[in-house]
């Protein structure tokens, strides 16, 4: 299970009344094994949404819950992939991935098995003994994704995970994440400001307004993807060429541009 629910969620940084109102009346339900991306103008509070599910921030109003339990603190059932990777630089790739399993008191033989499997899946086996800084940005983020996936979490939270990568690496990672997510589905909340990325990866895309952020619109991408059989195309550029893809992308672009325009007015 792993149903994320935002019920009338609001977030104010600082004192009520004079503080900064980041989020207002957020209502969103993410079903079990559903992949939802949130896009929005910068500063709209999309990352705050993710941080509340992770347990790094508390909602000022309303309730954020997973499987009906309100979230109080961070935990390994909600694994986070950070934009800046956030690996432990003093631990090898293997030990970075191992740490969460040790905390869960998984037996050592099972740990070795699970780590080998995830290293293999993420093409990291030959880098197991490397330190993070010896790897490229894309490889480091692969380690971070492996560190999250190995915990077998109900919920996977990804905060602009490819934002710090160069364009080529980014495409490769997006394709890999699609493969991983289809093979091994999880409930995923994915934050991004890249529209194509959201449409390519997610089952549904939620568009947010400028601050105080609200959910403006939720688009059902999965039904279009299945109807048009996007997954038959292996490469991201082939999918991005499809008329149905372009249509959705343009729709989201327009919606975000409206927000941007309103921000400047």
């Amino acid at each position, binding site marked *: 299970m792993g149903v994320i629910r935002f019920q009338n969620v609001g977030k104010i940084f600082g004192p009520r009344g004079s503080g900064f109102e980041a989020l207002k009346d957020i209502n969103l339900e993410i079903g079990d094994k559903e992949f939802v991306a949130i896009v929005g103008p910068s500063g709209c509070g999309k990352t705050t949404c993710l941080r509340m599910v*992770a*347990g*790094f921030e508390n909602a000022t109003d309303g309730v954020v819950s997973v499987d009906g339990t309100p979230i109080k*603190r*961070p*935990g*390994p059932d*909600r*694994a*986070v992939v*950070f*934009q*800046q*990777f*956030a*690996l*432990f*630089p*003093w*631990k090898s790739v293997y030990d970075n991935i191992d*740490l*969460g399993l*040790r*905390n*869960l008191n998984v037996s050592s033989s099972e740990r070795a098995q699970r780590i080998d499997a995830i290293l293999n899946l993420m093409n990291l086996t030959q880098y197991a003994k490397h*330190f993070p*800084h*010896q790897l490229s940005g894309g490889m480091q983020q692969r380690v971070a994704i492996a*560190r999250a996936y190995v*915990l077998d979490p109900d919920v996977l939270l990804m905060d602009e995970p490819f934002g710090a990568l160069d364009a080529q690496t980014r495409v490769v990672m997006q394709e890999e994440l699609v493969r991983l997510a289809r093979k091994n589905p999880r409930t995923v909340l994915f934050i991004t400001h890249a529209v194509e990325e959201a449409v390519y990866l997610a089952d549904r895309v939620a568009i947010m307004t400028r601050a105080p952020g609200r959910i403006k619109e939720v688009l059902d991408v999965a039904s279009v993807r299945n109807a048009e059989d996007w997954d038959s195309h292996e490469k991201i550029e082939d999918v991005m060429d499809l008329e149905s893809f372009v249509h959705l992308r343009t729709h989201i672009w327009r919606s975000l541009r409206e927000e941007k325009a309103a921000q400047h007015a």
Partner: protein
Amino acid sequence: MKYESVYIITDSLGRRGRVPRRMSIGLATILIVCVLWLAMTTLFGIVPSGRFPSPAETWSALVHVSGRGYGGGDLTLHVYNSLRLVVMGFLFAIATGVPLGLLMGWSRKAEAFINPIFLIIRPIPPLAWIPLAILWLGLGDAAKIMVIWFSAFVPSVINTFAGVRNIDRPVLEAAYMLGMPKFRFVTEVLVPGASPMIFTGLRLSLQASWTTLVAAELVGAFYGIGRVLNVAQQDLYPGMILVGMIAVAILGWGTTRVLGMAEARALRWNTAALAAKG
């Protein structure tokens, strides 16, 4: 302080290939200074021997203190006593200072409690504690260990504290996310994360330990290099004074070297990380 540590680490490990060359330049410099010393004192007599000893006088002072002994003991006894006190005071200081720095870095509450006391005590020069220490504990080892502790404690607390505060926020959040038990969080995240700064603190603590020890021994001691310096000053014995000074220099260098080796070992990941950044 950070840059200093960067320099020393890359110096002793990062640029291994250049070390022999650097070492030979260093040795050449020392040699030139020795030649100049000989020239100024013995050869041309520009500096009178009452002001600064010649190499020969220094050598005879060294033979004197090593053989017959001087100031209550021979050189080995003095060195042993000074070294023992520095190591004890230093270890005692970091065993208390590093945990306190971790606590203050970790808990805002602890910081709020401890910082005011710290701010009052910090500006007092460690040497100003010597009279009080002697009054309380006499001229023996205990007073000196207490003074060394005072001087070495402060840098280790401050740098450990700063080191914890310097750990990247997302790295800490990743640790919370992974559900770390408290003890493991301290040993596998806080301490390694703060360790580059902790070692900077330890190096400063070690320097402070030697400074204070010699000062404390100058004020009053039965054995030790400071005692040698003190007696030599009263005896108007420049050769012996120089021997004492050189002994402190060598001991300080040696202990720093041992610490540097421990640092290079503990921070292998960081050395390479810094090198990777360029």
